[in-house]
């Protein structure tokens, strides 16, 4: 009986200790960098005694889950690493805590971070000095290729003979297409290979992120720079139309069979299983790809090729404090810790993409990994989708119309872009912007 009483007492005591322990919850997408952050955060807990619980949501459900949580003023998360496009809604609808006073108080300067990432992940309205997030994870859409195939003398000479230039990192999208078609259906080591695993996903944002990589490179602008929300002749310019047509050609001629609803993981799988010569994906995945290729023989990486201009689709996220959290003070403590240059360096070392200038400008950075230089190049040319509070309403018609044209083969590229503008005008009108 005595033993039972002691056991009961110990259990009750440990429960009360646990319930008193300081803890916060951080929400992010379920992917490799999230695991790196979890690892990094152990140091925060060791230093401060604050436990950090993580909730990682698979990418296809990430936006739905998080935005529903914010719209419902949920208290599940104290910290949220939200997509760059959410910053407008986070600020306008009051989901995120404005961090200016906190930054001033703690001596955190936004000039210590890469300007492109501060602009994309932290500010609303764009370019203002209203900060709603600390740049957490720099990212852009880039390419990986099978360097081991490219290095084969017989393939190199065959390619050169056919196209008159060397098989290597493509200088533009036309060269990328040539190389993709070169590998399409080719038998290598007894297996049939294909050109490229590109984004074609319909449900969330996949095909939009993919096609904009081409559209930006062709010089597409979303709107008239002198007349906001005037999209006619910009978003559906002849260059934009050509880029969308090109993307369809790339899908039709170079994608592996069945690659009609593919995004991050599907592209990665197609590449890792040796189906394709190229994969389009976010820098976030390159540490994982690189890890399996310790001598750097199999994979090479490069920034989005230019066509008319050098440009890349922006990914990445900032870390924000959720307005509805009861533990904002603890969450801010985490941000203060995360902004430290030494923590940022460890973040990069563990496989996260730091946006801190001390890390990026370090002389050893470009050679620290095989994709570091590409990352630096990309972050200088990134462009993002609309970051308006209504970005989901803007994303959905684009997903549908582009998928309908690229994968389904319905209509023309011009018709698809016109249809998107029509829907976007309706969204901006409802939002009082037009």
């Amino acid at each position: 009986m005595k033993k039972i009483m002691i056991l009961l007492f110990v259990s009750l005591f440990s429960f009360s200790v646990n319930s008193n322990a300081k803890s916060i919850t951080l929400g992010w997408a379920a992917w490799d960098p999230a695991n790196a952050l979890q690892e990094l955060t152990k140091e925060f807990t060791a230093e401060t005694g604050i436990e950090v619980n993580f909730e990682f949501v698979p990418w296809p459900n990430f936006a739905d889950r998080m935005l529903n949580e914010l719209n419902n003023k949920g208290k599940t998360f104290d910290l949220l690493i939200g997509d760059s496009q959410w910053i407008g809604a986070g600020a306008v609808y009051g989901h995120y805590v404005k961090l200016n006073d906190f930054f001033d108080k703690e001596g955190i300067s936004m000039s210590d971070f890469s300007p492109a990432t501060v602009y994309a992940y932290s500010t609303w309205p764009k370019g203002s000095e209203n900060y709603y997030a600390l740049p957490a994870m720099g990212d852009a859409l880039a390419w990986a290729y099978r360097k081991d195939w490219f290095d084969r003398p017989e393939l190199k000479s065959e390619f050169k003979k056919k196209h008159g230039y060397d098989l290597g990192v493509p200088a533009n999208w036309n060269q990328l297409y040539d190389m993709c078609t070169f590998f399409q259906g080719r038998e290598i080591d007894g297996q049939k290979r294909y050109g490229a695993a590109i984004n074609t996903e319909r449900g969330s944002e996949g095909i939009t992120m993919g096609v904009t990589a081409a559209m930006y490179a062709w010089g597409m602008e979303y709107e008239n720079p002198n007349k906001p929300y005037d999209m006619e002749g910009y978003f559906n310019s002849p260059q934009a139309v050509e880029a969308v047509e090109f993307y369809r050609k790339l899908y039709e001629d170079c994608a592996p069979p069945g690659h009609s609803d593919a995004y991050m993981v599907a592209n990665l799988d197609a590449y890792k299983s040796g189906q394709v010569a190229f994969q389009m994906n976010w820098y976030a995945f390159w540490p994982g790809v690189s890890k399996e290729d310790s001598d750097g023989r199999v994979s090479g990486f490069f920034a989005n090729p230019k066509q008319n201009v050098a440009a890349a689709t922006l990914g990445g996220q900032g870390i924000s404090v959720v307005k509805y959290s009861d533990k904002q003070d603890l969450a801010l403590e985490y941000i203060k810790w995360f902004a430290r240059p030494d923590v940022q360096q460890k973040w990069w070392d563990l496989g996260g993409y730091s946006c801190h200038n001390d890390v990026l400008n370090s002389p050893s950075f470009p050679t620290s990994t095989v994709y570091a230089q590409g990352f630096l190049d990309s972050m200088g040319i990134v462009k993002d989708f609309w970051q308006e509070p209504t970005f989901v309403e803007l994303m959905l018609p684009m997903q549908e119309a582009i998928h309908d044209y690229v994968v389904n083969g319905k209509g023309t590229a011009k018709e698809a872009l016109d249809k998107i503008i029509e829907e976007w005008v309706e969204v901006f009108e409802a939002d009082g912007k037009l």
Partner: protein
Amino acid sequence: MSVKKKFKGLSDKAVGWLFIGPTVLLLLAINIYPLVYAIKMSFTNFYANKIGREPQFVGLKNYIKVLNKEAIWEKMQVTASFMFWTLLLQAIIGLGLALLLNRKFKGNELLTTLIVLPMMLSPAVVGVFWTYLYNPQVGLFNYVVNFFYDLGSFDMIGSSTLAPWAIVIVDTWMWTPFTMLICLAGLRSVPNYLYEAAEVDRASKWQQFIYITLPSVLPFLLLALLFRGIENFKMFDMVVELTSGGPGSATELASINLKREAFEKWKTGYSSAFAVILFVTIFGFGNVYVKVMNKIKER
């Protein structure tokens, strides 16, 4: 005795209300109130994600917008086609299987259990694993088709021609057992003496089927199709997992579109109007169907 004492002084009607009261309240709270609220919202320009913005009354604008939107009619067409083919196939195959299983043979029970298995699975899980079965490179479905007739590489969920058939096949695979079970119940309720009398009258097997089996099983079959029709009108999870409504919008059923409008675009007023239209449609069709079914039963 104690119950009697407790209700002493209450009329039968009052006791009746006491019993059904909680259920009525529950129904009012979770069915009627949301319905009335949705109808109210359908006349406004409400956006559930725009905090602090008061909804304004817009009259019939949302209804007119829904009914005039070409894309909505495309989604309705996709839904109608999906319903037509799934119900037709499930009726034919379900009845056929029921006729087969109504005979006594060795392994009958085991076969029935195996046939019924697909409908016990979660629709979302079914959607996910059929994406693998339909994979043009390693999918079992494509392999089997090519084994019998060499079509080469074809992509069931990436082609706008094949994707609508892809969802019809999966739904038929999953839910034919349901139709079969209901038909089987109908077949087993047919008294044997009818067949014996028909034999005496020298009716052929075909005549027995047309004049005895079919009329007896038809009310059951129609009931099964009513359930399946309502379910397929609301079909969501399996199709989302299988095709996400794609390619493009080739398999975007009305329910998927409604979810996107309501919970991704957050056009609450507009999507409420769409939901009311869908509700009236299914309610109207359901009523007509039940009336027809009752007439068939009365024959």
